[in-house]
């Protein structure tokens, strides 16, 4: 139980700016996921909080206490590593009890706590086994057990699920959420998997190239990405981007025009953009729909590939020479080569600055005034 603050944290590896002026505040008992592709600096950031990497500049506070000059053991943290990092020559019980023994807890207390944790994680029958005799999923539980045996005020998890197979990953994901909730503790969880981030986090911090891109609740990040990178990284399947689109005004009618279709906008765009300026139009596959008969379609497209997922079907199409994807109800059947009419709701579009990639606010003037 502690809040965490990173203030102007920088880390260089030679010429490589691994973490670039990172400012991030994590609330007490918050489940914060740091999300990003490999090389984004997310693991480095976590390791700096753990004390396994030094800072080149900046400050880290845990529970109001400045910890960056302290060694890991004095930071009151526990960590779960990607490859579990279990002690190969110790039994499961010894692994779980290691931290308590190092803290010189009385032996009876260690035994009691190890049993308690083993019970919580379903490891009772494995207590005298060595880690290498356990499956990956069991090893992961032992790693979790070792972390929670000591009541640390901050739990750091570095891609703890990435070595598990798909089914087990979903199961363990749920268990970690339950565990974090029952422990009432602060968790920082690093992953490159946006589904993990969306499902587990109270808030997500998205990083790229060492720079924090956006921090927010999962749905906020999904609905209002601050830039094109976040828009593309969050959401499965990925958002469609239409390069070279332009804002266009014809009398009172405002629209955003791609080379093939045009989406009318019945609101004014509050943007540092002039009419005719180039923008990147972003539309999520789930926001493209088949036009009902009688509706004016936004675009016409040819079906290229159909990927049924069960409940939903992912369809790849070509509108003119522009590829796009769309997610529709699983009961609708399309065949490759079929020509379909599409509609795109103007409320669900995103506009991005073509150079910087930052989002162009599309609030109406009225909203802005309110």
């Amino acid at each position: 139980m502690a809040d965490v603050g990173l203030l102007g944290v920088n880390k260089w590896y030679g010429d490589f700016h691994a973490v670039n002026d990172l400012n991030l505040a994590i609330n007490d008992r918050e489940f914060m996921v740091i999300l990003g592709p490999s090389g984004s600096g997310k693991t480095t950031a976590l390791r700096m909080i753990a004390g396994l990497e030094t800072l080149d500049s900046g400050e880290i506070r845990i529970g109001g206490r400045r910890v960056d000059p302290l060694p890991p053991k004095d930071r009151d943290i526990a960590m779960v590593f990607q490859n579990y990092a279990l002690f190969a020559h110790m039994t499961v019980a010894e692994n779980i009890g290691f931290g308590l023994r190092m803290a010189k807890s009385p032996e009876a207390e260690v035994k009691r706590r190890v049993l308690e944790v083993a019970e919580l994680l379903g490891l009772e029958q494995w207590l005298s086994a060595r880690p290498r005799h356990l499956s990956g999923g069991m090893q992961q539980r032992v790693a979790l057990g070792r972390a929670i045996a000591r009541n640390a005020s901050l739990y750091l998890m570095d891609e703890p699920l990435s070595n598990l197979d798909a089914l087990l990953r979903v199961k363990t994901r749920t268990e970690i959420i339950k565990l974090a909730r029952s422990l009432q503790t602060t968790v920082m969880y690093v992953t490159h998997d946006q589904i993990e981030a969306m499902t587990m986090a109270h808030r997500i911090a998205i990083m790229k190239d060492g720079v924090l891109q956006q921090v927010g609740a999962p749905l906020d990040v999904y609905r209002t990405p601050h830039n094109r990178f976040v828009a593309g990284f969050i959401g499965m399947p990925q958002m469609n981007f239409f390069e070279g689109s332009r804002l266009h005004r014809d009398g009172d009618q405002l629209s955003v025009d791609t080379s093939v279709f045009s989406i009318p906008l019945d609101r004014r765009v509050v943007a540092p953009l002039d009419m005719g300026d180039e923008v990147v139009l972003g539309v999520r596959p789930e926001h493209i729909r088949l036009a009902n008969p009688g509706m004016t379609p936004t675009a016409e497209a040819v079906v290229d590939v159909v990927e049924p997922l069960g409940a939903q079907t992912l369809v790849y199409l070509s509108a003119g020479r522009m590829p796009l994807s769309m997610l529709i109800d699983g009961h609708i059947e399309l065949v490759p080569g079929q020509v379909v009419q599409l509609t795109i709701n103007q409320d669900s579009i995103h506009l991005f600055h073509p150079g910087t990639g930052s989002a162009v606010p599309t609030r109406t003037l009225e909203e802005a005034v309110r």
Partner: protein
Amino acid sequence: MVSTTDASEIGLDRLPPEAGPVVGKDRGASTGFLLSLPATLLILVVIVFPFAYVAGMSLYNEATGEFVGTANFRRVLSSTDFLPSVRVSLVWTISNLVIQTVCGLALGLFLNQRFRGRDAARTLFLVPFVVPTAVVALMFSWMVNSTFGVFNHLILTSGLSDTPINFLGDPRFALPTVVLINCWRWIPLVALIIFSILQGIPRSEYEAARVEGAGHWATFRFITFPYLGRSMTAIGLLGTLLTFNIFDLIWLLTAGGPVNRTKSLPVLIYEFAFGLQNLGAAAAASVLMFLMLLVFTLLYFQRRDFKVE
């Protein structure tokens, strides 16, 4: 696509029938035999045959060619030199192993630290091992020489002693001196082996230990040592046998003297063979030494570390 392909389409039907299952059962067995044949022959020629020949020799009077039964063994066992030699060999082997393990471990741990010039240090470390034994012996003979040696110069000028020490000639110092010279030669190799084992220990285990609050000593005791222990048991066996069998360095430095203080079993065997010209007794002593090492090896393999779990 695949389902419409049949054998004729891709020409499988034109292959001769015997080309089908390339790795048949019999074929695999005979291939295995053929592949292991060179190694088997080599072992037979350089190890088994010579040993059988020596074992045979031990039962004959090599000068007259007459069969003497156990006479050579009785001759060796009743020799006043035999038991002292066994004792010298044991002291030699154990002290070498202890010193080399302790110093090699310390140096290996030191090499495992990151510091400037570590790679250069690693290369330099191999120098003692690359120098030929004869050169090592000659070099140290001069360095420990009681009149001109650099060690005695240091001892006299520092006032540690008023008189020079005859390292190789004084019965009190001869064996320790030879042991230390041998250690000088082998410690770097031990250090490099330990260093390579240390490099193989997952870094994340160390990191986990740091996060869990382990200090330097606990980290060594609970992580480094268990990893080293396993590999060291195998290397320990090898080191024991190698060290026990060392003849050249001892012979070149002291020839077994003074007053037999450095006469280990290999030196004794050499003396039987080429000093006393008694090849039968030398063969008998060799067989005895072989049996001692064999018993040791068999006992060593009883250790838990060698058992498959």
